[in-house]
């Protein structure tokens, strides 16, 4: 063989390598990976602590305990809100799902630098597996919430079965936020402190501690522009207090409801687009 060599016909099964992408490597592999990594992370989070899985329950319960004492016993807030303790607990579980998943995913891509830089890996698995991990925690917590609900004396209703209609949009929204945050963090490390402040602000701006009807009437629509607020109000009607109005009625009908819907879709689509665009370059920017 010499330096000038004959070229050979390319094997017919050859395909072009276009470089990394969000989903690279096939849909099946993407699904398996998200599932395996999300599950593993969930197992690892509480592994090795004495209370194990109980911690995933304890955290929202303790937060609930503190907030309940402060708002219900000290500030005498919520006396006129029906089933306030249950509502508070449910809201905390749902909101901490969003906050935990988003916070986890901020640094996720950078923390998995090795994988991103040394392996052909569907990048979108990284934020999505964070969301999945938080979803497992939320599902375990929801079981506790419903036990508490019955123990508190709320009668089970058929509308409880509608819960997935709340959870699915919430999970999608969270995934959108996770994708935006994790891909932005690769370029701007400021995202981490900004998000720390922003998520706290969001916690108070969203009707978690208080129901929407405690908000001055003029501001209710503003508060409900946040899609999480609408989801929490709807779950309150379906699960905790059937006598309250649904999100649809509170916000004032269809045209108004388009605002949170738009925000919701905007975050989901933007998250996907940003991540998809960023994905091919992530390995180089790390």
């Amino acid at each position, binding site marked *: *063989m*010499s*330096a000038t*060599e004959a*070229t*050979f*016909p*390319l*094997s*017919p*099964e*050859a*395909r*072009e*390598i*276009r*470089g*990394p992408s969000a989903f*690279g*490597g*096939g849909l*099946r*592999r993407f699904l*398996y*990976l998200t599932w*395996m*990594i999300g599950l*593993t992370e969930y197992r*690892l989070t509480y*592994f090795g602590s004495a209370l194990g899985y109980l911690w995933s329950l304890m955290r929202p319960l303790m937060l609930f305990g503190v907030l309940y004492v402060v708002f219900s016993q000290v500030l005498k807030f919520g006396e006129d809100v029906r089933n306030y303790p249950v509502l508070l607990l449910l809201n905390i579980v749902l909101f901490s799902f969003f906050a935990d998943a988003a916070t986890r995913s901020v640094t996720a891509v950078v923390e998995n630098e*090795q*994988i991103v*830089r*040394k*392996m*052909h*890996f569907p990048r979108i698995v990284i934020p999505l597996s964070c969301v999945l991990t938080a979803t497992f925690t939320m599902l375990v917590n929801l079981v506790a919430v419903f036990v508490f609900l019955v123990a508190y004396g709320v009668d089970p209703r058929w509308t409880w079965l509608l819960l997935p209609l709340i959870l699915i949009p919430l999970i999608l929204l969270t995934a959108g936020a996770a994708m935006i945050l994790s891909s932005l963090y690769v*370029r*701007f*490390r*400021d995202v981490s402190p*900004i998000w720390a402040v922003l998520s706290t602000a969001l916690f108070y701006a969203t009707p978690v501690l208080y129901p929407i009807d405690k908000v001055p009437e003029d501001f209710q629509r503003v508060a409900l522009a946040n899609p999480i607020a609408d989801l929490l109000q709807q779950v309150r009607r379906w699960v905790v207090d059937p006598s309250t109005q649904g999100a649809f009625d509170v916000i004032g009908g269809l045209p108004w409801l388009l605002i949170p819907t738009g925000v919701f879709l905007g975050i989901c689509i933007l998250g996907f687009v940003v991540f998809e665009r960023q994905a*091919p*370059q992530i*390995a*180089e920017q790390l």
Partner: protein
Amino acid sequence: MPAPHAAVDVRNLRKTFRVPRQHMMTLKERALHPFRRAEFDELRVLRGISFQVREGEFFGIVGRNGSGKSTLLKCLAGIYRADEGEIRIAGRLAPFIELGVGFNPDLTAHDNVVINGVMMGLSPAQARGRFDEVIAFAELEDFLDLKLKNYSSGMQVRLAFSLMVHSDAEMLLIDEVLAVGDASFQQKCLDVFYRLREEGRTIVLVTHDTGMIERFCHRVLLLEDGLVEMSGDAHEVGRRYLELNFERRAEVPGAQSEGGDAADVADVWIEDAEGKRVPAVAHGEPFSVCALLDVRERIDRPDVHFAFNTDEVLNVFGATSRAVAANDDEPFLPGERIVVRMTSENALGDGRYFVDCSLHGAERGMIAFRGRACEFVVFGGTTGSGLVSLPHTMRVEREMERVT
């Protein structure tokens, strides 16, 4: 052996990295200097590379540091997106370029094998099914319940290598695998390389090690400054690679010199049989070690020593001119430039050697010394181990018939 089809076809591949001169990382800097465009240095890592790898070929990529070989491998693996050019590959790739990527130190071997298997494109069930084979090959049966962080680095590499071998990939891209692991496992890896080679799996190996290239590769690509310097026969390319390596390193790091008033060791070098300076000598070939001496004072009964060292062993071999050189009694005179040449057939084993040179005189002790004055590489040694590779034959004889 090469099959008539090409498994990899790369055409005119280009990749440029833009390295910001001031790293505009924070939003604050963006906000303070909204109109300042970030300045970039363009780092043209791959500047138009074309080559083919044939089906079933063991293909080597060599190049000095910064020549672009790792970037090329990352483009092949789909980790970087090429700026220009086409890469087409037939067959499933193992997605790694390094062993042990994607291991989670907090998990046991079992969980890691399953997750890594999934990363390589197996289904979780398939990955679980292969667990026993993987562990058996890695010889880790006794450590199943240990978390990976408690494994030694050698054990981790064994597990990773075993996983790679047991994946379904039709084509392997490997970046410097054998840097770790103990000798016996390295041997096992080499055996696997032989086996994969015989099986006709397509393998692309990036390495620094000319020994590996000559032992395994059917063909080799040599990269230099982002261009294909040469491709083809492993032996020729390996030789060219060594030359490139040493052209740029005239000064041997760690060289120490003690000149006296009386004389200096001005230069030390290696020559091949034709008298050409070379950086490397094939085993069994005649070669010379030469020293140039600048003499300023008369030296009676001069004696020049050469000592061959490796990084580990001092004085692998020493030679002295006194009582060996025919004209050894003539004094060196002021103003003379003297060349001392030791010629031998190369019996050294594969490896890197350093030469110390010193000049001694009657009743004066050592006059001049130059440590690590020159460095050279021996390659092409036959089987066997050790610092020397003596010409030898072997026979197996039976003294008497074994009674069964």
